[in-house]
Each structure stands twice: as structure tokens, then as C-alpha cells.
């Protein structure tokens, strides 16, 4: 009963927290006035926009999520160096290729985050998702071994994301 009422007042608790942090960062101040105003906004806005967000975000494993963020940040730096070398090198040496990744993730949010992560790490851009949401088409700038590349993406990015948002 109390839980139902709490849920109708705070339809998206994670969104509320993110909004409050955004508000404080935008104003660049942590004064009491801004915290109060930010809290009011972060309660009202999710309430008005909840019809656009049918699914509730549910972070199940925050430790894995933090680890995932660190891994992605590290990968971005390493991949940047590799791709910078590839771009400055000769065009003829590049072997661009389309990869088809069979997705195990079913949740829309997980798929979106996976596709965004793939695009953020240099060297790969996610290009298309099949209508049944089962295959993700990824373009890679340079691949030596296609199967190995697909396997790396699946174990390094998809598995932790699924653990955080789906399991």
C-alpha cells in the first residue's frame, strides 16, 4: 500500500536523482536554495513525463555498472590511440568490415546502451538494428579476425550490461 503510493509519486527514482545532479551542475552551486528548487523539479518533471517512459529503470548491480564505466573509459583511450595510428597510416592497409552481432539482450535500454557504447569506442560504429531487435549491424574500421571482434564486444560490453539491467 505504502509502496504503491511511493511508486505513483516517484515513478522514476533514478531519473529524479539524475535530474537533481544535472540541475546542481548546471547552476554550478550546491547551496540549499538550489537543492530545494532542484528537488522540486526532479519530483515534478518525472511525474509529468512518466507516460513517455513506460519502462522503469532498474539498476540491479551498481558495482558491475561502475566497473563497466571504468572499462569503457579505458577502452576509449586505448582505442583512440590505435585508431589515430590507423587514420594517419595508409588507406590501403585498412580492412573495413560490417559485423553482425547476435544480441542476447532483450531490454530496449540495454540494447541502446550497448549500441551507444559501441559507437563511442573509436573504430566501431553501430549502424542498424534489425526489426526483431535481435541483430545489431556494426561497422568496424579495421578488423583482422571478425569472429574474435564479435566475441570481444559480446563479453566485454554486452555481458556486464545485461547483468546490470536484466538479470
Amino acid at each position, binding site marked *: 500500500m505504502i509502496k504503491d503510493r511511493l511508486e505513483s509519486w516517484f515513478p522514476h527514482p533514478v531519473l529524479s536523482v539524475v535530474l537533481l545532479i544535472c540541475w546542481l*551542475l548546471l547552476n554550478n552551486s550546491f547551496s540549499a536554495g538550489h537543492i530545494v528548487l532542484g528537488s522540486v523539479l526532479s519530483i515534478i518533471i518525472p511525474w509529468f513525463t512518466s507516460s513517455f517512459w513506460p519502462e522503469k529503470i532498474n539498476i540491479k548491480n551498481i558495482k558491475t555498472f561502475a566497473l563497466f564505466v571504468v572499462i569503457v573509459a579505458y577502452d576509449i583511450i586505448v582505442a*583512440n590511440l590505435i585508431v*589515430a595510428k590507423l*587514420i594517419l597510416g595508409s588507406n590501403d592497409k585498412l580492412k573495413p568490415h560490417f559485423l553482425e552481432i547476435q544480441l542476447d539482450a532483450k531490454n530496449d535500454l540495454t540494447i541502446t546502451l550497448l549500441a*551507444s557504447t559501441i559507437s563511442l569506442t573509436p573504430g566501431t*560504429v553501430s*549502424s542498424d538494428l534489425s526489426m526483431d531487435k535481435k541483430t545489431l549491424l556494426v561497422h568496424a*574500421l579495421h578488423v583482422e579476425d571478425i569472429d574474435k571482434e564479435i566475441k570481444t564486444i559480446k563479453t566485454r560490453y554486452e555481458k556486464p550490461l545485461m547483468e546490470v539491467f536484466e538479470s
Partner: protein
Amino acid sequence: MEIFISLLIFIGAFFTLVGSIGLVKLPNFFMRLHGPTKATTLGLGSILSASVLFFYTYLDTISLDEFLIVVFLFITAPVSAHLMAKAALHSKKKV
């Protein structure tokens, strides 16, 4: 500290430059899409962290707006890249 900040700005400028070179030099549309990802991630990332460090050490104010810029860029950049790739696929650009 000054050297460290300059180094960060230099790294940022370098990767932005490499991204732009890639945009000009690579042979087809899909490969050219890879250029801007470098400029946005490591390039802007290090320029903005240099900005945070500069304000912190020289003006003694903690300015954290830069983190928001990074976050919003990281959210929007993949979406625009994805839309361009999708549009190219549907208009059957040559690979």
C-alpha cells in the same frame, strides 16, 4: 601543473585534428564516420578536463559544468552517428 594542463590541451587538439584528417582522408562514407568519434571522446574529454583543472588551480573555483558537457556529448554523439549510418544504409551508399 601548468605543464600538465598544456599537455591535456595538446592531446585534445591532437585527437581533434586526427579526427578531422580522418574525415577528409578516408575513402568511403562509413569509414569517414569513424573520424568524429575520436574528436568527441578523447579530444573534447581532455580539453574539458584541462578547463576544470585550470579553474581549480588558478581561479580557485570548482567549475563542474564541463562534466555535463561531456555527459551530454557522450549521449548525443552515438545517436547522430547511428542515424547517419542508418540513413546511408537505406540510401544504399557504396561501401
